[in-house]
């Protein structure tokens, strides 16, 4: 179980998150809210890329607030970036192998790599030896990023807007990917998303607005409110895709 206790985060003297508290014990939690509301900041705080200015972060009751990115990864936290990183010279296979824990130069088998890639709708034969560099499109990178988290198989996986840049056909498959993950996972999945269909498979929805939690609760309670739009709503959430 992941727990945020009164977490605040300030950068360049701007308050980006204020007193954020929540728990994630459900299998599938969606985080939504307008652009710039602080969703990615929450993801980076979970992964250890940012450290809270105040407050505590606990994983299964252990205080991880001051642990490094590496330590948290080794405790079972996975993070698929909103903007995946490109590497000159490292191939799809290299990255999936590293994700699967092979740091000593050994590579995962072609069959395993293919299984992860075909899950995310990429033809393994075409992609396995491609460099993860500027020649890949944004949508391809996003899918490789998802394949990497599958190879990690962590107890807590955070996806930051996995649908961004992915076309409609692939999007349908993506929903299936998350459905499958939902069935298989023994841990928790946190997805930051604006997409109704992703929110619809969540157990719990957290709505972030202006660096604070505007609403939080079971899907059945939150989703109808969100879909009503801003008129007369007690919280606002943009359903536009981030650009």
């Amino acid at each position, binding site marked *: 179980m992941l727990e945020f206790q009164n977490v605040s985060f300030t950068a360049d003297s701007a308050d980006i998150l204020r007193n954020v508290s929540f728990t994630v014990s459900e299998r599938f939690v969606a985080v939504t809210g307008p652009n710039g509301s602080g969703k990615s900041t929450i993801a980076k705080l979970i992964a250890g890329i940012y450290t809270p200015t105040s407050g505590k972060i606990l994983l299964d009751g252990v205080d991880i607030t001051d642990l490094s990115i590496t330590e948290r990864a080794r405790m079972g936290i996975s993070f698929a970036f909103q903007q995946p*990183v490109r590497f000159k010279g490292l191939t799809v296979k290299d990255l999936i192998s590293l994700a699967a*824990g092979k740091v000593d130069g050994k590579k995962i088998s072609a069959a395993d790599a293919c299984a992860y890639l075909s899950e995310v709708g990429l033809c393994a034969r075409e992609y396995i030896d491609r460099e993860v560099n500027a020649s890949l499109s944004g949508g391809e990178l996003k899918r490789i990023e998802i394949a990497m988290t599958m190879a990690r198989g962590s107890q807590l996986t955070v996806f930051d807007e996995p649908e961004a840049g992915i076309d409609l056909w692939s999007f349908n498959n993506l929903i299936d990917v998350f459905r499958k993950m939902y069935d298989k996972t023994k841990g928790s999945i946190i997805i930051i998303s604006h997409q109704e269909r992703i929110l619809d498979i969540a157990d719990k929805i957290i709505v972030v607005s202006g660096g604070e939690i505007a609403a939080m609760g079971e899907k059945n309670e939150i989703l109808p409110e969100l879909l009503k739009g801003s008129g007369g709503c007690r919280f606002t959430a943009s359903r536009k895709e981030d650009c």
Partner: protein
Amino acid sequence: MALDPIQLELLQQVAGLHEVPQGAYSLRINGALHGKNSSENITIEKKTDKPGIDIYIKAGTKKESVHIPVILSQAGISELVYNDFHIGEGADVTIVAGCGIHNGGSEKSEHSGIHAFYLAKGARVKYIEKHYGSGDGSGERVMNPTTEVYMDEDSYMEMETAQIKGVDSTDRVTKAELAAHATLVIHEKLMTHGKQFAKTTFEVSLNGKGSGTHVVSRAVAKDDSRQVFLSKIHGNNRCSGHTECDAILMDNAVISAIPEISASHVDAALIHEAAIGKIAGEQLMKLMTLGLTEQEAEEQIINGFLK
């Protein structure tokens, strides 16, 4: 005479060989020709007027290779060697050169090789050259290779050079002249550390109509090392030329990249690119979220970059 373990290790590092090679080869150890072998299509002759060899590859020779490694395992040797490669019309061969220096002493060890390639019409060459240094003696390991390439019409040469470890000082010069429709592709990989110094100079003259070149360098400089990359392309006809230097800078190292393109023909299309920077923080972070330490992440990024 059998090779000792240090010599075998050097041979493995520079030529990927576990033993004295089969087929055409020339092996030079500690300043003298250790052994050579010609094959039906490839003749290797010792020069009579100066140190070095002449290598003659018959016209039409296909898919054969020549190994010409040089090994210095005694400290204090300095040598200057001339190797000339005559590649016959339409031949298609791989040439593996390389120099390994083990210096366990306090005196300087130095190898300077002057390699000249003469490619006849339609000849194709893949030339691989690796430099490697080992040994913890205080004596410097110095290599100063010069490569001259003369390419006749429709010939093609691919040159891969790598110097990843242990060479204290290098001054590499590569010059090429290309006739019509000849193509030269150069990939250089370089990593320096400690107080090493490496300078590379490429000068490619695109003289023939339709000739072309790509000169691509990937470099990593660590610690207090210094690198200078000079690349000149002269476009003297309708031709295309591209030079690219991509470098990762670490610690207190210094890199200068000085690309130069000059054209004397309106249909010469020449491009140069050079980028120097540290490892991107987000790359380190991504690999750390996969469970790697910062050092492991750095290693993976550099290994991939120089692969």
